[in-house]
C-alpha cells in the first residue's frame, strides 16, 4: 500500500541485532540444542552414538594416514612437476602474475557485488597455509611462498579498495561495476596472454596449470556457444532450430572421451594447431551442448507474458531477448550451469587418458613412475583428489553466493 513505511533498498537486508533474541544464558541454550539435535529420543540417541563412533573412527584413520603413515615426499619433491611440469622455468613469473591477476579479480568482484564473510577468510587462510606448508616443506625456494602470499595480498587489497566504495546507485557505482564487469569479461583472454606470451607457448602448459587453463576455457567458451544455441533451438525458423538441435543432440550423444579422440585424430586435419588448443575446442564444444539445454529449459520456463510485455512496450525481438529474456533465463540456469562447470573441471583429467597431455593427474602418474616414489601412489592420488575437491567446492560456494546476490528464485 502507498502508506507502507519506507523500506530498505533491495540488496541489503538488515536483521535485528542477534543478541536481542539471545536472552537465555548460553549454557542453557547449548544444553537444549544438544538434547534436541543429538539425543531427541532413545532411537535417536542410538543413531547418534553409532554415527559419532563411525565418524570418530574415520577421523582417526584420516589423521593417522595424513600425519603418521603417509610419506608426502612424493608431493613435496615433485611439486613443480605437479604444478607446472614442462612450463619453462625462466617464464615462471608469468604463472605468479597470472595468479595475482586472478586473485585481484576475485577481490574486485567480491568487493563490488558481495563481501567476504568469516567462512571466506577461513577458507583463504586454510588454502594459504596449505600452499605455504607445501612449498616450505623440503626447503623449496622461499620465493614461491612469497609470490603466493603476494597474490593473496593483492586480492585483499583490491577487495579493501572496492568494498569501501559507495554501494548506492550513482555514477561512481555504475563506473565501478562497468570497470570490474569489463575486466571479468576480458579476464580469460588477459590471463591467457599473460601465460602464453614471450617464450611460453600453449604446448608448454602443463600440470595443474593446464587444468586451470582448460576448465575456464571450456566453461567460458561453452557458455558463449550455449546462449546462441539455446536461442537457436527455440527459434521459429526451422532451419536454425534443426541445426542447433542436431548440434546439441550429436554432441551429447557421445562421451567426452570420444570427442577427445576426435580432437586427437580428426581435428588435426581440420583445424590443426597444438593438441592443447584442440582439447580446448573440444571442451568448449562439449560443455556448450549441455549448457545450451540448461538455458533452453530456463527460456521455456519464462512466462509468455514477459515476451508479450516486452513487445507491448515496443522493444524489438532482439532487444526483448537481450534486456528481458536472457537476463532472467541466465539467472534461472545458474545452478545447472555451475553443475556443468564442475563436471568439466573434473573432466579436464580426461585429456591425459586420450591425449598425450600432462595435467595434474597425468603428472601424478609420472611422479609415481619414478622408482623411488612407486610405493607412494596412494599419497599422490589422495593429494590430487583433495586439490580437485577444493576447487570444485570453491566453485559451488561461489555459485551459491552469486545466486544469493542475484536473488535467484525470488520473483
Amino acid at each position: 500500500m502507498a502508506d507502507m513505511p519506507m523500506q530498505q533498498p533491495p540488496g541489503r537486508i538488515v536483521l535485528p541485532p542477534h543478541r536481542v533474541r539471545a536472552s537465555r544464558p548460553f549454557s542453557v541454550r547449548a544444553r537444549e540444542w544438544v538434547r534436541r539435535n543429538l539425543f531427541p529420543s532413545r532411537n535417536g540417541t542410538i543413531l547418534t552414538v553409532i554415527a559419532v563412533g563411525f565418524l570418530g573412527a574415520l577421523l582417526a584413520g584420516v589423521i593417522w594416514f595424513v600425519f603418521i603413515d603417509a610419506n608426502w615426499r612424493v608431493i613435496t619433491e615433485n611439486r613443480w612437476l605437479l604444478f607446472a611440469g614442462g612450463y619453462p622455468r625462466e617464464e615462471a613469473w608469468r604463472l605468479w602474475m597470472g595468479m595475482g591477476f586472478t586473485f585481484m579479480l576475485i577481490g574486485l568482484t567480491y568487493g563490488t557485488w558481495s563481501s567476504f564473510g568469516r567462512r571466506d577468510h577461513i577458507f583463504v587462510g586454510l588454502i594459504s597455509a596449505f600452499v605455504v606448508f607445501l612449498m616450505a616443506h623440503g626447503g623449496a625456494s622461499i620465493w614461491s611462498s612469497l609470490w603466493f602470499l603476494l597474490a593473496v595480498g593483492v586480492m585483499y587489497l583490491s577487495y579493501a579498495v572496492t568494498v569501501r566504495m559507495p554501494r548506492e546507485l550513482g555514477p561512481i557505482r555504475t563506473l565501478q561495476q562497468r570497470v570490474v564487469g569489463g575486466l571479468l569479461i576480458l579476464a580469460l583472454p588477459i590471463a591467457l596472454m599473460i601465460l602464453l606470451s614471450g617464450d611460453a607457448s600453449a604446448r608448454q602448459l602443463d600440470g595443474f596449470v593446464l587444468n586451470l587453463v582448460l576448465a575456464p576455457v571450456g566453461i567460458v567458451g561453452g557458455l558463449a556457444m550455449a546462449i546462441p544455441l539455446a536461442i537457436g533451438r527455440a527459434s521459429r525458423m526451422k532451419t536454425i532450430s534443426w541445426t542447433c538441435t542436431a548440434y546439441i543432440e550429436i554432441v551429447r550423444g557421445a562421451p567426452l572421451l570420444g570427442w577427445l579422440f576426435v580432437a586427437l585424430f580428426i581435428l588435426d586435419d581440420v583445424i590443426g594447431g597444438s593438441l592443447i588448443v584442440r582439447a580446448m575446442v573440444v571442451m568448449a564444444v562439449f560443455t556448450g551442448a549441455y549448457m545450451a539445454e540448461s538455458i533452453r529449459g530456463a527460456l521455456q520456463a519464462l512466462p509468455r507474458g514477459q515476451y508479450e510485455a516486452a513487445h507491448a512496450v515496443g522493444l524489438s525481438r532482439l532487444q526483448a531477448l537481450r534486456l528481458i529474456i536472457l537476463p532472467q533465463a541466465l539467472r534461472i540456469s545458474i545452478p545447472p550451469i555451475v553443475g556443468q562447470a564442475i563436471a568439466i573441471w573434473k573432466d579436464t583429467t580426461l585429456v591425459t587418458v586420450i591425449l598425450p597431455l600432462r595435467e595434474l593427474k597425468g603428472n601424478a602418474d609420472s611422479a609415481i613412475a619414478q622408482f623411488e616414489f612407486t610405493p607412494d601412489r596412494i599419497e599422490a592420488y589422495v593429494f590430487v583428489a583433495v586439490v580437485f575437491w577444493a576447487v570444485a567446492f570453491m566453485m559451488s560456494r561461489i555459485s551459491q553466493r552469486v545466486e544469493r546476490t542475484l536473488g535467484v528464485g525470488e520473483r
Partner: protein
Amino acid sequence: MTTHDGVSDASADSDRLTDSQDIIVAENVDKWFGDFQALDNVSMNIKEHEIVVILGPSGSGKSTFIRCLNRLEEHDAGRIVIDGIEMNDDVRNLNAIRSEVGMVFQQFNLFPHLSVISNITLGPQKVRHMPKAEAQQLAMQHLERVGIPEQADKYPAQLSGGQQQRVAIARALAMQPKIMLFDEPTSALDPEMIKEVLDVMRELAESGMTMIVVTHEMGFAREVADRLIFFDEGALVEQGTPQHFFENPEEERTKLFLSQIL
C-alpha cells in the same frame, strides 16, 4: 458509421466525442487458432478519447480482439487501422503502432529483474532513445500519477498486486501512447486492491485517453464507459451506451450474460 443503433446514441451522449476522428477502425476481422475460430467478422470503430468497455463470457474472444490491436496476435482476415496506419506485415507500421498503443495485462507482466523505475524507463530509453535522466524524470511523473512515487527503487516482487498493476499502467503511459488497452486489469487482484487500480483508470479516462477495457467491473463500466460492447463466441453481439445495456438490452445472449453477472 457503425451498423448498430446503440452506437450513434453513445456518440451523441458525449459532446467531447462529437468532433473527433476514428482512431481505431476494425473491419470484418477474423482470427483462427488452427481450425477454431476465435474472432468471427468483428467490426468496430472507436473515436479518439472514447472509453469502450468490452464484456463477454470467458473464451468469447475479448482478449484475442484487443491483442490484435497491438499485434500480439495476427488477424487472419479483415482490416485493422490504428490512427491511420494499416496493420500489416510491414515492420515499420508495426513499430509505429506499438508505440501508439499501450497495454496493461491481467497478470501485470512487470519485468521482475528490473526495479520499478527501470521497468518504466526501459521503453522510453530503448525505443524512444530518450536520455536516461529525462526518462527517469518522466518515469517519476508517471509514478506520481499512479500514486506510488515512493516505490521507485523497489523490485516488483516487493510490491502488492495493486501496486504492481499501477506500475504496469505507469510503464505503458511512459511511452506516451494515444490508446490504452486493458485486458482484465483487476481480475488477478484481491478485492481490497481493485479500487486503487480502477481509480487510476478513472483518472486516465477523465484526462482524455482513448481506452479499451476488458473487465467484469460493472460499476466501472456503468460510470466511466462511453460505450459497452458485448462479445460472444468470437462475434460482436451488441453494443450501446451503459444506459442502453443496463436498462434494455436487446439480444437474448446479452440479457442472459448480464443476468448472470449482475
